[in-house]
């Protein structure tokens, strides 16, 4: 099993008040699954994604990723896991504005110490895969929204991670460019990647093989399609 969540709880403390963002989540995800996480706003989708992506740790419960327990890891160890195992695609792209597309894609390679001779080649390859072989020196503000998200996808897959996590990847795109990104995920999935995406649009979720519906921090339904 690639991902095993056992009794995961996540609380946020706002002053004296405690928000139970996730209450007892049990969830297993296997290699090469294509999972969509759905639910109304505030149901805990992003919180779950952050935990899965090792950007945050749970208040209670255990999280095993590829067999190793990451529940109690420190900041630096989590950074290493993120770098090696996870590729992120965000709703608002999160590219470095002053760096070229190529350099943006190179970043994960920089942080695992890949020498620059190999870095350029790998980044260029990833950009070509998402159809941006001719835009490598462009900065984010010289690219369209769809192209920016494709740079982000290239960045997510350049390091060959186990999982690609996408939090509303089409949220800032029009329908047509959104579909292009979804086609890209489809291709990646067909190529053997594990994909987990958050969305609140049914037609986006239809690309996936399994839909997990959250409500008030609980898994309300978990169904294969």
């Amino acid at each position, binding site marked *: 099993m690639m991902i095993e969540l056992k009794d995961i709880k996540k609380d946020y403390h706002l002053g004296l008040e405690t928000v139970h963002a996730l209450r007892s989540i049990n969830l297993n995800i296997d290699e090469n699954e294509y999972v969509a996480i759905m639910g109304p706003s505030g149901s805990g989708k992003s919180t779950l994604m952050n935990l899965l992506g090792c950007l945050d740790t749970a208040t209670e419960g255990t999280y095993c990723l590829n067999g190793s327990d990451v529940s109690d890891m420190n*900041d630096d160890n989590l950074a*290493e896991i*993120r*770098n090696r195992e996870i590729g992120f695609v965000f709703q608002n792209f999160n*590219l470095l504005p002053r760096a070229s597309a190529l350099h943006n894609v190179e*970043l994960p390679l920089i942080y695992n110490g890949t020498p620059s001779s190999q870095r350029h080649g790998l980044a260029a390859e990833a950009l070509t895969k998402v159809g941006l072989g001719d835009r490598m020196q462009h900065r984010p503000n010289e690219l369209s929204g769809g192209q920016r998200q494709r740079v982000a996808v290239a960045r997510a897959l350049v390091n060959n991670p186990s999982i690609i996590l996408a939090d509303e990847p089409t949220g800032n795109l029009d329908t047509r460019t959104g579909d292009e990104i979804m086609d890209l995920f489809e291709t990646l999935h067909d190529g053997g990647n594990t994909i987990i995406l958050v969305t609140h649009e049914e037609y986006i979720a239809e690309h996936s093989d399994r839909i997990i519906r959250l409500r008030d921090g609980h898994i309300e339904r978990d169904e294969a399609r």
Partner: protein
Amino acid sequence: MKYSWTEFGEGVRIATQALKANRLRSVLTTLGILIGVVVVTVIISVIQGMNTYVTGELSSLGTDNVFVSRYPWMITSWEEWLRVRKRPRIEKEHFEFLEKYVTLAEAVVPEVATRRTVKYRTEDLGGVFIYGTTDKYMVSSNAMPEFGRFFTDNEIHHRRNVCVIGWEVADKLYKNKDPVGKRIKIGGQSFRILGVMEKRGQMFDFSMDNNVMIPYTVFLKVFGKHRSLDIQAKALSPEVVGELKDELEALMRRARGLRVGEESDFSVNEQSQLLEVYNNLTKVLWIVLIGIGSIALLVGGIGIMNIMLVSVTERTREIGIRKALGAKRRVILWQFLVESMFISSIGVTLGILISIGLATLVKQVSPIPVNISAWVAFLGIGFTISIGIFFGLYPASKAARLNPIEALRYE
């Protein structure tokens, strides 16, 4: 995972990029550091130059000379002045007594001086120092006549109106003529010139060639007996200076007939006392100036810290992205430290350039040999890079510890 050159390179790359993007802001920030460096290096260099100059000048007094005088060279309080001002004069007899019994001195020389206008025919020369002394003057001052000869014991004893003139007096009053054998008028009396002293140059700004030496016996006769003598003794070797001081003290007390327990009514001075005075003066100077320099550097450092905090805030989202992609704390820390060291080293470089300019200027308008020595420059560089690190550390560690989720959400 080991620290990689790749991470290092990325840190440098980011820092340069950030500085380029905020060129004016960076330069303004360096101003404080720049001023700090200029203050510190110039001050250290000026003090060093002054030390070289003053010690050089003072050493021409001779480190092995001891002076028996009526008053101490340094009077540090009004009370001390009230205590010493009633001291009796040092007389010819005291000198003769010391000269007779001293064992640790190569020469004992009386010295009494006044400033007068001297005349040769219709020419006159004002402000000339007239010294009453003996032939041992040649030993104590380490100077010989260039032409002619010095006066002898015999001439001193018989109070002959003879003299030896300084090089400058000869030059100004006798022009191209040979002064030896000619007459010179001092204080209404006519003296025969026996010789001309060799050129001795200046001490501080004071010419040591603008003088006339006459037998001290004649001096006392012509310029009055009320004057107190100074007695200069040159030690047999520099090692016995201390013992010579004790010996002179004891002899002088005997000459004065002082009883055990009575306070000495004279002073035994030496050159190192002047050096001590000078050192005390510069110590105060050091403290004041180091204070100013530190404040300037502190202000500069706070400027850096401020701008780095702004920089961290502005780039919160960037930090979030980098952390999400696997940047560890030390990578982020390093990135911001490099940036603050860059800023401070710009300040240091400009500061050192300006300091060199100022040093050159001081050297041209004053006799003080100011040089920005390499170690001062290195000190400045080391100091300021430390400041870059010290004041950059807080903002950088703040950046390194940012929570990635919050950083990513930052607008």
